[in-house]
Each structure stands twice: as C-alpha cells, then as structure tokens.
C-alpha cells in the first residue's frame, strides 16, 4: 500500500480486522516520508505487519526509480519510527529459514536452532550427521516476507504495463476493474518475476495484449485458495466499482484492496 494514501487506504481493510492504531498511523505518516528522503526511494510502500509473541514487526518496501519489481528493498521496524534494512539471503540460507516453524518472537537478534541432518557414507556405513546452525530472526523474517510476497502479492490486470524497453511501470490510465471482471481469477496477476506460465490455448493467446498480460494469472494455484468478497462503498463515489476484497487461503491474513 503506497505510503502516500496509507491512513485512508488502511480504512478499506478495517472490516477484515486489519487495523493500525492511531499512534501507529501517525508514526508511519512521518517516518515513511523521512525514510523515503533519507534512502532516496522513488516510492515507499507499507507492506504489512508480522505479529510476534513479544513485539510486532512493521514491514515497508522502498522502491527505487528503476523497475518496480526488481528494485525493491524491504525494511522492518518495531516501533514504526526506526527502520532497518532486511538482509538479502542466499538460497541455501533461505531454504533453512523456510523450514523453521512456530511464531516469531519479536526480537530480531533471537536465534533459532536449525538442525541439519545429513547422511554421510553409503549403505551400511551410513551415519547421520547433525549440524546445528543458528539462524537469526532477522534472516527468518526476510525469508518469510519473500515467500509470502511471491505467493500472495497480486495486482489487477491492466495496473502495470510493460513498455517497449521491457520496463514494467504503473499504468497511469488504469481506472480499475469493472463489476464483472472483479470476481474473476483471470483478472489478477501475480506480481513476481516469472513469465506467464498459464496453459492458454493458441486462440486465446491471440486476444492477449503483450504489454499487459505478461504475468501469470491466479489460475495457477488450486481452486479454493482465493475467495472474493465485494463490498459496496456507497459513501465515497457511487460510480466507482465496488471494492473487491480478496481473501487468500492458506495465508488468510493477507488481504488486498483492489479498486
């Protein structure tokens, strides 16, 4: 969610239980602007909140002037004021972090024990070698955010376009999806760096627009993972299409507001 309209946009998600307290909203309003200036980001988005046992983490992503998909850096904060950059993990480390389960504690220096069991030797001589690696919560946070983002970050069709130079930019003339398209899985794309992997028949491929349909749609995962609810927001603008609230299972706490 873009930091510019954060206090207003977060209201849309209120009926799904996602709420920021007034103090947090006030703190985010100022600190995200300061973050943008200090780190020279083009835009800062508030990604969300991960709740830990003792403390919660607030996550923001700073987007540079380049490709919005590639040039993204994640930052975390515990009090919405002081932001720290999240490390970018190597694949092996990320793999270790993904196998850790349980709640987050809330202390970025807390160390989890990852026990790596390797079978050394062959046949009868096979022995199990256990290797205990200490993984910091900060690393685990980075891995989890990456995983959630890959699975769940979606955008409506037409919101992003690919320019002639293969650069992906926001479509300024995107007016939102209409009533009919809102509830279809195929009108939403995964915001990730993989090409369109849908099994589309050749005839259908001819109707696709190369500048818009370059990502895979939501049809790729099994049905039942995504649920839509439409909520009429009559007070604001009666002409605007209703708000589509998309509920994702198995990560039910991620809600996306699509206008």
């Amino acid at each position, binding site marked *: 969610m873009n930091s510019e309209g954060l206090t207003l946009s977060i209201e849309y998600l209120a009926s799904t239980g996602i709420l920021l307290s007034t103090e947090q909203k006030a703190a985010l309003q100022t600190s995200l602007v300061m973050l943008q200036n200090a780190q020279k980001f083009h835009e800062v988005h508030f990604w969300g909140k991960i*709740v830990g046992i003792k403390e919660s983490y607030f996550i923001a992503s700073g987007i540079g002037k380049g490709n919005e998909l590639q040039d993204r850096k994640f930052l975390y904060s515990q009090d919405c004021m002081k932001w720290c950059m999240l490390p970018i993990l190597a694949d092996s480390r990320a793999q270790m972090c993904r196998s850790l389960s349980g709640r987050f504690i809330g202390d970025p220096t807390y160390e989890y024990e990852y026990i790596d069991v390797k079978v050394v030797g062959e046949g009868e001589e096979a022995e199990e070698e256990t290797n205990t690696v200490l993984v910091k919560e900060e690393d685990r946070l980075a891995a989890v955010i990456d995983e959630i983002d890959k699975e769940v970050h979606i955008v409506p069709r037409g919101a992003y376009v690919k320019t002639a130079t293969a650069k992906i930019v926001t479509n300024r003339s995107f007016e939102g999806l209409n009533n009919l398209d809102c509830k279809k899985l195929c009108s939403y794309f995964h915001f990730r760096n993989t090409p369109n992997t849908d099994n589309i028949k050749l005839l259908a491929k001819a109707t696709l627009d190369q500048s818009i349909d370059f990502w895979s749609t939501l049809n790729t995962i099994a049905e039942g993972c995504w649920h839509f609810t439409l909520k009429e927001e009559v007070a604001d603008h009666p002409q605007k299409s209703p708000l589509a609230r998309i509920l994702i299972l198995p990560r*039910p706490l991620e809600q996306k507001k699509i206008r």
Partner: protein
Amino acid sequence: MPLPDLMDISYYFEQAGVGLGREETFKIFLALKNLVDTHTLQNVRFWGKVFGTVKNYIVAEVEYREGAEDDEVEEEEVEEKVQEEEEEDEKNEEEDLPKTDYKPPPKIPKEENGTGCNKKTYFVCNEPGTEWIKLPPVDPAEIVCARQLKKFFTGDLSAPVISYPPFPGLEMNYLRAQIARISAATHISPIDYFKFEEDDDDDSDGEGRDSYTINVEFEPLPVYELVDPSLNNWVHHMQHILPQGRCQWVNPTLKTENEEFDEDEEEEENEDPDEPQQEEGPPLLTMINQDSDVDGLPAWSAARSSDLIPAYSVAVLKSNTWPGACTFGFDKKFENVYIGFGHKYSSENYSPPPPPPVFEEYLTDLEVTEVLIRL
C-alpha cells in the same frame, strides 16, 4: 441497560490495534440495539467476528433474563416431539433382521441452558443489519469432534461440515462449538473483578463453582501491573471445557433405573473393564499464567498499547493459543473480543486423524487357518 457502549469499547481496542473500523463497529452497535429491542435480554456483548470464505459472521453473546428463554425454547420442543413419533413406526418393521452386538458409546448429555458451556446464548448475523439468528446450544459430542477438525467457515449456517471424523451437525453447530471453545479459553478478567459468592457451603469441594458476582469493592490495578509478564493479574471467568466436552463431568456409564432391570443378566458378563475416570479441569477464576504453553512460549502476550505515553496507555493481552482473541484493560474497564477465523494456533500443518484400524473378522488360530492338503 443491557446494551454496552460499543463505541467506547472499540476506542480502547483501536488503541491496541484490534477492531473492525469505526463505521462497521457503529453498524454493529445499531444491530445490537435491534437485538435488544426484539428480545428480552439481561446482557448483550459483542463477542466478535468470525471470517468465512463467502460471508462472515458477527457474533453477539447474550444472557437472557430469567424465565425469558424458557418461553422461546418451549416452542422448539413441540416440533421435536412430532418427529420422534414418526421414527418409532419404522423400527417395528426391522425386528426380523439379526441384531449386532455392537453398542455405541453412551451419549453424553448436553448441559442445561444457563450452565457450563451453554451459560450464554449466541446470536449471529452475516452483515450488521441482517437478521440475527440464534445458535443452538452446544453438545459435548460437537465439541469433541470440533477439537479434531480444522475447517474454514463458509458463511452459510446450514452448510454441511464435511470432515473426518464426521461432524455431527451443520456449520451452525460447528460455529457454536468453536465459539464455546474460544470463550472458555480466552475470556479473561482482571483479578478480583469477579468473586465467588461466599455462602456456597454445599459445593465446598470446589467442583460445583460455576457462578460468580461482580466484586463491588474492586479496585482497578494500574496498567503496568496488568501488563506484568508473570500474568498473575488476570483470571479466566469462563469454565474450562473438559475432554468430555462439558464443563461439569458426567459419568456416561451410570444407567437410569429402567435400563438396569432389563440388562441385569448382561451386566455380569459385560462389565466395563475401566470405570471412566472423573475428568477434572482447572477451577473457575484460575490465573491465566496457568494456561499451558504454546510451543514453549507463554499462552498470552501482554503489552501496553503505547510506549510513548505510558500514563494513558491501555493494557493489551493477545492470546497465542487462539490468534485473534484480544483483551484490553484500562481502569475499571476491560473487554474481550475475537476477530479471526475460528481456528486454534498450531505450528504444524493440520492433518486429519487417521481412520480407526480395520476390525478383525475372526481370530487367526491354527484351527482356523486353511491348509493346503495335497492328496
């Protein structure tokens, strides 16, 4: 005044970062007022919101005024009797068939309205403004089964719950069972807010204590004590649910007088090898630090709502066993709410219990095994 000041309560929850937004809360407030106007109620509370895949449930916890609920229940009982008479006619036709020896385990009776798990009644609606539907009282079998399931709600009360072990009821029963479990586990109050009535001498074993009154001399604790990590300033005011599925233990093998005369001969042969042991749970008003740990971490997370202005901050307790359950405490006010999917926390992915082992048809002795004889 049975209607609570929901906007006031939601203000405190907002400081804790929990809630549904002011507009929706106000609509719920109006819906609760509607509920109070149409039924004779002693107390109404906004219990919380349970999310579903298609629609959500807004749940109100209600206590009827004495005698008022019986009037409503009588109408439902008349309908049930008519159905029972029809079933008896069908049974007479089946007498010629051989009968099995299998006796299903005795059915554990559900608790009376106003006691134990059914102490409070719950009404649900999908959206604030739609009709409030009363949920039926909960059955121990439903709670026992709900403990083994993890299903998302769809938002339709009459939807079947297709699961293993098969759930004995519809989604409204599953919802009611989850509400009962969540209430029993997460409804807490500051210590000494409620106290036991002092003239309970006949139940001095501590077993039968299921009622309490508001302590008039309650002195509110300062926020830093409510947020103390030792968690010894909060107590549960809802009774713990035993593994049996009830709050008060009942011996299922105790037979009524009619049954004993018929089965006298059989009793000598088929005696239960194990007398069921009485199940005990923590008594009412136990401190929350007695709650079992989750993954080695405490069951509750206590924090202040604001570290910048601690003088006016609110004590916030979030449950780690039931994510979504939250309690705030400030001065003399406190309240519990649940906003979530209705599932208990588990660090592992859910996998349904395996089916029971296949029954043996006959004993495989040497006498019974077939042997090939070559002539």
